[in-house]
């Protein structure tokens, strides 16, 4: 559909009120998002009406069902060809239903589901006063260490609100990569950010760090989104519209009806460039690219580990999805402006993440920096600006998200008196104490390091291949070097686990419930399958590699 014909949802109000034609919404195609949002609202109602004892089960049930249903809907849509032939822009130009969005939505939903499992885990912490407890604060409002907290714990309160929050976040993430105008983008950004801010503050142990993480994340996040918004304003000012298609046309100069005002602003490249830069910056903040990465280690460390895992996986997927769409759909016309810049960002991200990670002493921070380095690798794929680039990024994201959730799930298992034992020194000799857990974690680390026969290698190869074909050979070389550096600290952890003597007062490895086991098992399975026989998923990704315009 040509952009000129797009009557933006909002502009209808501008015409004299003779008749109001209701906006046309393709509910079927938006069903995944709608299901999740609906479930979230149901979750809120559950909080309101279901008795405390049974809330947990109700919430887990609702969320699980919702996510599965949403995933089923995605699969149905994809099967219905909406990913390829019938791909088009729904909701009067607000949402794009096409390959990338469906693939990413599917990934996000699966990641969400696995995340849900880790959220719902209640076997790890010793039962307080006969109540099973999960890794979230008994009562977020109560001051850490206060009597009220004691009371809450005694009463066996649990913060079941996390489940609706999770669903809200997921719903935002579902919209984010498929948003087709800047306003939707911004709203989606906030919709998935705000619940995450909250969830970061909800850790049961180490609550001070948790709250600190929340504050940092919130302030910096809000700061970033302010920039994004300003960027959006600039772009709007430049193109006179927030619709991707229109902006794209204006950028290309292929816009049909140019009124004088537009002609005036079109001439002003500063608007475009500043706007683009700022919007991109907002997205880079979310993916944790250097130099917008500094929130990552602190937040990853402070947030409850299940949240960290979910956040690390799903946020990256959503944010990269949005970034891809922005760069490929809105700004292909100014490729020659943003490619060099992104080159720089990718390089410093790859190197920065890898180098700083070398000297980390906390496993969660280590994984945070590793996630930064990986963001760099993915950016290399983004820069390829080719269909292969898109599909390689999609594949990488899918592979990466499962490894990440799995890895953080393993982190939740290694515990001592103070909760999770995240300091690396505690992990010494883990391979002796519980070889299985250590081996699984080693598999994840090797996948991060991109050793062949793991999904990490397939993904890295795909991305670098795309980049090289896109003519970014130096980028590939730097990527290779930094993954060599990165290998060093993954290896360090393995050395620690297997080759160093276990300390007598070392941590214990909790025996998780089937939920976490499922999360970890899925992680391992995906890691190996995508490592050994990635062809099917590569096909999927390459089919999904086309954006609708």
């Amino acid at each position: 559909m040509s952009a000129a014909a797009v009557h933006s949802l909002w502009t209808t109000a501008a015409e004299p009120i003779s008749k109001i034609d209701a906006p046309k919404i393709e509910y079927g195609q938006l069903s995944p998002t709608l299901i999740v949002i609906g479930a979230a609202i149901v979750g809120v109602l559950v909080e309101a009406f279901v008795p405390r004892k049974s809330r947990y089960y109700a919430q887990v049930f609702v969320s699980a069902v919702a996510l599965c249903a949403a995933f089923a809907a995605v699969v149905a849509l994809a099967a219905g060809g909406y990913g390829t032939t019938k791909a088009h822009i729904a909701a009067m130009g607000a949402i794009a239903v096409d390959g990338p969005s469906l693939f990413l939505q599917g990934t996000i939903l699966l990641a969400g589901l696995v995340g849900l499992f880790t959220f719902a885990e209640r076997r790890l912490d010793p039962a307080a006063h006969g109540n099973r407890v999960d890794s979230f604060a008994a009562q977020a409002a109560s001051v850490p260490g206060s009597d009220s907290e004691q009371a809450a714990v005694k009463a066996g309160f649990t913060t079941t609100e996390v489940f609706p929050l999770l669903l809200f976040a997921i719903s935002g993430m579902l919209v984010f990569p498929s948003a087709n105008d800047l306003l939707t983008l911004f709203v989606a950004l906030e919709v998935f950010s705000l619940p995450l801010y909250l969830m970061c503050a909800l850790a049961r142990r180490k609550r001070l760090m948790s709250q600190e993480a929340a504050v940092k994340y919130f302030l910096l996040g809000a700061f970033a989104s302010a920039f994004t918004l300003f960027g959006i304003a600039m772009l709007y000012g430049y193109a006179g519209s927030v619709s991707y298609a229109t902006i794209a046309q204006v950028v290309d100069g292929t816009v049909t009806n140019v009124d004088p005002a537009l002609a005036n602003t079109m001439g002003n490249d500063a608007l475009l460039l500043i706007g683009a830069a700022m919007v991109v910056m907002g997205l880079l903040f979310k993916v944790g690219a250097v130099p917008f990465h500094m929130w990552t280690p602190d937040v990853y460390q402070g947030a409850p580990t299940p949240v960290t895992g979910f956040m690390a996986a799903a946020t990256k997927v959503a944010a990269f999805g949005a970034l891809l769409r922005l760069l490929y759909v809105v700004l292909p016309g100014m490729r020659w402006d943003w490619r060099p810049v992104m080159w720089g960002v990718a390089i410093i991200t790859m190197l920065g993440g890898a180098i700083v990670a070398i000297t980390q002493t906390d496993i969660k921070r280590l994984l945070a920096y590793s996630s930064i380095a990986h963001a760099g690798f993915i950016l290399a794929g983004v820069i390829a600006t080719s269909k292969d680039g898109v599909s390689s990024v999609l594949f990488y994201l899918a592979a990466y998200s499962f490894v990440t959730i799995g890895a953080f799930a393993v982190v939740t298992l290694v515990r001592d008196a103070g909760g999770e034992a995240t300091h690396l020194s505690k992990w010494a000799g883990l391979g002796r104490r519980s070889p299985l857990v250590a081996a699984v974690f080693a598999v994840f680390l090797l996948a991060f390091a991109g050793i062949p026969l793991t999904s990490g290698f397939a993904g890295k190869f795909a991305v670098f291949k795309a980049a090289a074909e896109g003519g970014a050979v130096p980028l590939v070389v730097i990527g290779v070097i930094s993954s060599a550096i990165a290998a060093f600290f993954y290896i360090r952890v393995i050395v620690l686990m297997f080759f160093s003597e276990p300390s007598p007062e070392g941590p214990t490895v909790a025996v998780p419930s089937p939920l976490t086991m499922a999360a970890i098992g899925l992680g391992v399975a995906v890691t190996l399958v995508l490592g050994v026989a990635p062809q099917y998923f590569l096909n999927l990704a390459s089919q999904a590699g086309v954006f609708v315009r």
Partner: protein
Amino acid sequence: MNPVYYLYLAALLFTIGATGVLIRRNAIVVFMCIELMLNACNLAFVVFSRMHGNLDGQIIAFFTMVVAAAEVVVGLAIIVSLFRTRHSASVDDASLMKL
């Protein structure tokens, strides 16, 4: 009056807000600065909306306000809980995690 001046004003407000974020310690004030930045954006939207003669910008401004309100809800919740824990709303005190 030349609409560009409004844009300058918007940019100025945005910069003031940003500077505030960088230099103020009190979390609440920092947060208010962010609100200021958002409002700067709003101003820009409205101005552009007038320049282009379509209402998108003005409507976006409303969306922004709603989002800002939501942010306030979440943000104050977090900041208040932090304050109750530490009896201080200084962002610099919250630096357990570093390096």
